[in-house]
């Protein structure tokens, strides 16, 4: 053995010493590799775990919090929702199609491993600027086809998500996939190994050498060298996964299964040790019994391979033939590879001979835990300073509006979601292109609203506030569709946590999420951390993606964003302030990414959302749309583009015209309603202490906006619609 064995598996000297202490001897190569993958950041969360205690993770609805394959939240009628988000950033940077596809495959397995039927997928994507960068377009296009390729084939609708472009993602694109499943309370399964003598079964695709080292690949910075060396790329097989999904759900309807877990990062090593650890048991498996597709694989290769579309089961002794029959019916491999013991050890054999033996808990739970140093980065104070007086005045606001609509960050995402089958299973009530997607729950009169949100520029300039806003915006997206926020899964994408400024961003973000979640009583039930998203040149902006679901308990109360009828009154709930810092307007029109992030008053936000819920409940409004990037002007444009109507707006304000139109003040919702309901709306606004502005009314064909009596915007809706839709197709060719 070389004299620094820890280096070959990405561990430190101290970590190696800890292994020596646990084992009381030197680990052999297999054992050392198992520690290497399990104690990598990706599997052990060693740099992040210490902060998770801030998250609220339980309330009366939480049936399963973080720590399992997915979180589960009750929706009544004996039904519950399983949800989880997962990143596949590094693999997608190297092979966009397969990287994204296998990311989707992995998150789906996490959901059905709980016994839930996956009903919807979402994704949150970040790339460098695409206009002048063919490689970025290749990545964007490949990732989108990969997500579609997998989700469409397996037949789970991809109903929503987000895409943003910023140069900080040039070397480190982000691909986060989220899956939602439905489950009945009494059918929840967990990844646990219990009952001495019960059998360990392997099902699904055979094991190859692919993806070896994936977990550690995800735990280093991406450089030329790692990209070439670690070709931890796999080819996804959505067809296999569809069979695996159906077979597992059929099996989980029986009572043969004690525990089930998918083989994801760190493959068998992770599944075996985690299941044994959760069950306070041990496990012995023989690698020679594992179905393989390559000859001459070493035990270590079998143990850490990340081949896709595989699951590990612990089943009751004696049920093996019945289990095999189910998998045979679906044309899938299944093999008994070991059994549950009570010695707390994970014992690996090859043809009956012991080749490795370590305490299961030491792999799964006893990874070192670091509380990294943190320090506020220097850029923060510098970049927050913005003097509005120095901003060049713009004269033609029509032109500015079109420039804004043409921003890759604000234009329609149709080019993306038209490549996703968002309707399969015929439950998609609100399709992509709105604030949140809405999916009907079979056999009930209920629906789930789902969204992902994060403005990473906000998080860069003020992570604490940016993270609060991400939660608030997600919740607002849910509320405007008629839902009540239920739970969060968070996808935390950051740079290298060993650098104090990055860790500060991480810590601030977690605190921000936690504060908002507590205020809104929305628990965090699952999540994922992806660190080391940086290249030698730069780190990504902190990107804590919030995946949120909400419950609509009456299908009759689903609300949509588009205006419905000519002559309706348009009202803006909330108030517009001089908050142009960190905005898309500053970036697109003035080329600046700085300034103070808009303020967020969580109490006010909560009242606004409660107001919106009541307005929908009482059927007082006909449409509702959240305001976010691009402010009022963009929100109006989006409503119009979807409705083939126009709007006549007239307002008075002390703000500069451009700032009024594009301010990104938080806690605002655009609604439309019948004239007859305006008084009732006003009354409710007063009751909830929410300021509001009657903006104008819906008309035919055009958008006209008067500010302080001056006509500043006067455009045809058709032109807005065409522009919004043509931006991505034009760039992508």
């Amino acid at each position, binding site marked *: 053995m070389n004299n620094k064995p820890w280096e070959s598996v990405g561990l430190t000297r101290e970590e190696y010493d800890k292994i020596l202490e646990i084992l009381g001897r030197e680990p052999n190569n297999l054992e050392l590799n198992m520690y290497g993958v399990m104690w990598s950041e990706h599997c052990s969360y060693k740099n992040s775990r210490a902060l998770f205690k801030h998250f609220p993770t339980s309330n009366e609805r939480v049936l399963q919090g973080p720590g399992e394959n997915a979180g589960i939240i009750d929706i009544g009628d004996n039904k519950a929702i399983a949800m989880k988000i997962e990143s596949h950033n590094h693999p997608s940077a190297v092979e966009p199609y397969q990287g994204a596809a296998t990311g989707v495959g992995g998150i789906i397995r996490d959901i059905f491993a709980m016994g839930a039927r996956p009903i919807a997928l979402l994704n949150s994507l970040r790339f460098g600027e695409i206009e002048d960068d063919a490689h970025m377009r290749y990545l964007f296009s490949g990732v989108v*086809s990969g997500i*579609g*390729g997998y989700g*469409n*084939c*397996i*037949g789970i609708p991809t109903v929503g998500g987000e895409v943003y472009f910023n140069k900080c993602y040039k070397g480190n694109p982000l691909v986060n996939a989220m899956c939602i499943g439905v489950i009945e309370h009494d059918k929840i399964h967990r990844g646990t190994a219990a009952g001495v003598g019960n059998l360990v079964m392997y099902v699904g695709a055979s094991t190859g050498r692919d993806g070896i080292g994936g977990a550690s690949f995800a735990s280093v910075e991406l450089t030329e060298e790692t990209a070439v060396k670690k070709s931890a790329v796999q080819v996804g*097989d*959505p*067809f*296999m996964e*569809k*069979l695996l999904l159906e077979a597992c759900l059929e099996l989980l309807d029986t009572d043969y299964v004690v525990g089930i877990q998918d083989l994801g990062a760190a493959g068998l090593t992770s599944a075996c040790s985690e299941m044994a650890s959760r069950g306070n048991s041990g496990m012995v498996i023989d690698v020679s019994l594992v179905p393989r597709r390559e000859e001459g694989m070493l035990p270590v290769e079998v143990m850490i391979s990340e081949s896709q579309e595989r699951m590990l089961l612990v089943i009751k002794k004696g049920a093996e033939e019945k289990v095999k029959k189910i998998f045979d019916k*679906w*044309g899938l491999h299944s093999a008994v590879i070991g059994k549950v013991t009570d010695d707390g050890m994970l014992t690996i054999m090859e043809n009956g001979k012991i080749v490795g033996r370590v305490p299961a808990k030491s792999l799964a739970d006893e990874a070192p835990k670091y509380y990294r140093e943190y320090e506020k980065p220097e850029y923060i104070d510098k970049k927050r300073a913005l003097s509005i007086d120095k901003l060049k005045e713009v004269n033609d606001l029509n032109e500015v509006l079109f420039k804004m609509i043409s921003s890759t960050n604000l234009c329609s995402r149709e080019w993306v*979601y*038209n*490549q*996703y*089958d*968002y*309707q*399969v*299973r*015929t*439950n*998609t*009530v609100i*399709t992509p292109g709105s604030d949140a997607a809405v999916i*009907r729950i079979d056999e009930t009169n209920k629906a789930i609203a789902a969204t992902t949100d994060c403005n990473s520029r906000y998080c860069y300039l003020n992570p604490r506030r940016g993270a609060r806003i991400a939660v608030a915006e997600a919740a607002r997206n849910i509320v405007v569709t008629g839902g009540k926020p239920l739970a969060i899964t968070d996808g935390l994408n950051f740079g290298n946590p060993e650098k104090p400024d990055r860790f500060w961003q991480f810590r601030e973000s977690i605190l921000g999420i936690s504060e908002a979640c507590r205020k809104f009583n929305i628990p965090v039930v699952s999540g994922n951390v992806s660190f080391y998203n940086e290249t030698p040149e730069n780190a990504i902006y902190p990107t804590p993606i919030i995946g949120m679901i909400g419950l609509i308990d009456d*299908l009759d109360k689903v609300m949509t964003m588009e205006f419905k009828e000519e002559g309706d009154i348009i009202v803006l709930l909330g108030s517009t302030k001089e908050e142009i810092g960190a905005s898309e307007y500053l970036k697109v029109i003035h080329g600046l990414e700085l300034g103070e992030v808009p303020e967020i008053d969580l109490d006010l936000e909560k009242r606004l959302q409660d107001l919106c819920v009541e307005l929908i409940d009482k059927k007082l409004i006909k449409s509702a749309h959240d305001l976010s990037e691009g402010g009022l002007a963009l929100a109006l444009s989006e409503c119009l583009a979807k409705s083939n109507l126009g709007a006549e707006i007239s307002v008075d304000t002390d703000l500069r015209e451009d700032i009024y139109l594009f301010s990104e003040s938080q806690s605002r919702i655009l609604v439309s309603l019948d004239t007859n309901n305006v008084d009732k709306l006003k009354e409710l606004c007063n009751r909830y202490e929410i300021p509001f502005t009657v903006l104008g009314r819906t008309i035919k064909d055009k958008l006209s906006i008067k500010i302080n009596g001056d006509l500043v915007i006067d455009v045809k809706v058709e032109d807005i619609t065409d522009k919004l839709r043509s931006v991505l197709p034009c760039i992508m060719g």
Partner: protein
Amino acid sequence: MKFGVVVFPGSNCDIDCYKVLSNVLKKDVDYVWHDTENIEKYDVIILPGGFSYGDYLRCGAIARFSKIMDSVVKHANKGKLVIGICNGFQILTEVGLLPGALIRNNNLKFICKTVPIRVENNTTPFTLNCEKGQVINIPIAHGEGNYFIDEEGLAQLEKNNQIVFRYCSEEGLIDEKSNPNGSVKNIAGICNKAGNVLGMMPHPERASELLLGNEDGLILFKSIIDYLERGHFE
């Protein structure tokens, strides 16, 4: 009157067809596993959308060898009704019940959106409630829906009035702009010579409930039901 929805490994719109027939139209419908040989009790066989056998090699190429397909061919040859939607259409061309082939969309992308199609032939059991020239909005969701047939084959289709649906503009114009995938002559659906086998790329089962935004697709299912109830055309 009994419907059978065939389930191949990799089918995923089986459930959607089933739901329309049982929940919306309250008809008697079964899932039929791909290795079933006896399908005599069914009046209508539906080959649903999805990715049978992963659509590996070519869409529908492997599914067409399933055990059930021999019976489906016999069922069709007896004059009983068969409808293939999306992947089902691809299987019907691979097995030879319908002419032509479905190849990669000309923009090389999967396309999911609702498009207008025009009813070209309202004398089939599937379209008898439609007007000729009627425009209905039906979702498509496919990566390989680009209908190809050689000139001779096309002449035959036209001569025998086998073109049932074409992609069109909202006003019903058949033009290049309204062709989503590059199909020859904007063809979206065809039938066999006898008219009892229909293949179409658009998904009527996705457009059969107002809650989901559109019920234009119901007219097809209702036509089938009326046809079976009467046993013949009016």
